[in-house]
């Protein structure tokens, strides 16, 4: 390793030799960097999981436009009700080929073991096959049967294994909202931070489950746009038809991005995750700084000797950055491995969509390198104490 680093650096790898000279301190330093990495990975993993759970319901639908009440436009699930008649007005636009209402409701599903799951119902007309993604077209048609539902196989707290092979011919009956529902198929969505699972039902089934709801007041309206038309442009033109403070019209992708941004920047959970990431980075910087500053202090006479020999400041900077980069490069891997295990355990226990992405791993590696380099640059200030005149 020394030879390789010597060839790479064009000088003796003083930083590497210093670090490996004291294995105990090196291990402690690597454990510290790995720990900081785990902190950041966990926070970003949870944040990513939240964004994923926000995005999943939007991905049930084909690209198009979504109308939502302006008073509850931040999230899909908290949407206020809007008048269905607005859909009729939107349909008058030449680039709008069709529209369908979406109804949302929340209900508890009690299992036999006295546990319950909070289920988000998404209801739409079984004829709306052109509005949902292709793999849902056929199952959606099956919802035309009275009191049928597509159940979420990733629903938390309930063993969903028995529902895996359900179909209209092999339906399983269960009870919710004091009604018998028949599972005629399944979807894989998973719970998020606002619920434990998502069930799809027809609008007619929905009104039987939630009798207080009216078909005239859906939560969202999906609009199918003529192929080739510009979604943003059509959305802008439709928005002109309605008072700005009553309804918002956006492409579904924009609605999803806006909700993700809202969850991350305005909701407490997003801010907590951001705070956690900041704390993780701070812990990493402090640990790396402590290690590097101690190392500089321990070698102050040697550094002073090198100064007396004519070494310039950039040599010392390169030595300390070399140490910082070695700490980052080695400390990252155990952090990554522990985080991967943590993700797997968390996904298994909570069913939230938490998983490692290469983008996140690369970003955290770069962040680790940057944090360690920053610590190194801070530790360099200690070198001012290396006065060669004091050696005599």
């Amino acid at each position: 390793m020394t030879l390789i680093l010597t060839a790479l650096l064009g000088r003796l790898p003083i930083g590497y030799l210093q670090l490996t000279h004291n294995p105990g301190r090196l291990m402690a330093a690597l454990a510290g960097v790995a720990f900081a990495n785990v902190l950041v990975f966990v926070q970003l993993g949870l944040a990513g999981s939240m964004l994923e759970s926000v995005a999943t319901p939007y991905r049930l639908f084909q690209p198009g436009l979504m109308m939502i009440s302006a008073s509850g436009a931040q999230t899909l699930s908290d949407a206020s009700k809007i008048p269905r008649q607005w859909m009729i007005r939107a349909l008058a636009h030449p680039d709008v080929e069709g529209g369908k209402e979406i109804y949302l409701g929340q209900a508890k599903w009690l299992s036999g073991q006295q546990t319950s799951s909070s289920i988000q119902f998404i209801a739409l007309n079984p004829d709306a096959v052109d509005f949902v993604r292709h793999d849902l077209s056929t199952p959606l048609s099956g919802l035309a049967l009275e009191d049928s539902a597509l159940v979420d196989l990733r629903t938390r707290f309930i063993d969903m294994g028995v529902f895996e092979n359900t179909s209209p011919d092999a339906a399983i009956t269960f009870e919710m909202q004091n009604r018998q529902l028949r599972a005629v198929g399944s979807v894989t969505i998973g719970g998020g931070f606002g619920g434990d699972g998502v069930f799809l039902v027809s609008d007619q089934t929905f009104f039987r489950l939630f009798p207080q709801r009216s078909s005239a007041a859906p939560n969202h309206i999906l609009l199918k746009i003529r192929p080739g038309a510009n979604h943003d442009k059509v959305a802008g033109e439709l928005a002109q038809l309605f008072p700005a403070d009553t309804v918002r019209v956006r492409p579904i992708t924009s609605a999803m991005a806006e909700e993700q941004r809202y969850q991350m920047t305005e909701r407490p959970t997003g801010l907590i995750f951001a705070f956690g990431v900041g704390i993780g980075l701070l812990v990493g910087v402090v640990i790396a700084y402590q290690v590097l500053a101690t190392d500089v202090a321990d070698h102050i006479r040697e550094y002073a000797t090198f100064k007396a020999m004519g070494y310039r400041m950039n040599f010392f900077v390169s030595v300390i950055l070399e140490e910082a980069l070695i700490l980052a490069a080695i400390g990252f891997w155990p952090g990554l491995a522990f985080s991967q295990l943590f993700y797997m355990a968390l996904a298994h226990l909570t069913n939230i969509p938490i998983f490692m992405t290469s983008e996140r791993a690369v970003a955290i590696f770069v962040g680790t390198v940057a944090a360690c380099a920053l610590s190194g640059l801070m530790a360099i200030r200690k070198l001012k104490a290396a006065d060669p005149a004091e050696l005599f």
Partner: protein
Amino acid sequence: MMDDAPIIIEGLDHTFGEGEAGKQVLFGIDLRVERGSLTVLMGPSGSGKTTLLTLMGCLRDVQAGSARLLGTELNGADEETQVLLRRRLGFVFQAHNLHESLNARQNVLMGLQVHGRGEPGRHHLAASHLLETLGLGARMDYLPANLSGGQKQRVAIARALVSNPEVIFADEPTAALDKTSGLAAVTLLRDLGRLRGTTTVMVTHDPRILELADSIVTLEDGAIVRNETLARAG
């Protein structure tokens, strides 16, 4: 005609601290050190010999008077000038100041590396050759912790000599050594210096060293009170 002496000092004063808290430690020092000579600075503690050594070695800024090192005036010399001058010098400290993480050969290589990447093979060869000359051929891969005091000091001497410095400054290089090792180390410095034309300036309290010196400069209370040049045979 240019003066060949590597060190010429005229009217050098030095003060630590400022204002009323200031304490002058050197007073009007005049000194000339000839090329290839071994000059010993002597004097009681606090006489200013170490301060003089650090001023000559570009390790402190010259405040008043003139100090010419290898033809360059140090009074007013900027940092870059000082760094470049230091690269033409060698230092041997009382405490060897070897890097604990580097083995003997790597410590010596640091004396060459300061001059740039060079040719690694040649650097290795030069460091190994010098260590063998100093009787450390079998200890090249030893860390300082595994070397005796005398061996460490010889590694420090090798580090100072490996780049063929024009002047070597040594501060009590024998203080941590027994009689035999101490004399051997200074003899080595003197002989290698003569072989290469290197000038050596050494602070010492060790009377045994005086026998090897070409000139002995004695300081008291920040002033030179005696400057003897000794005639040497051979």
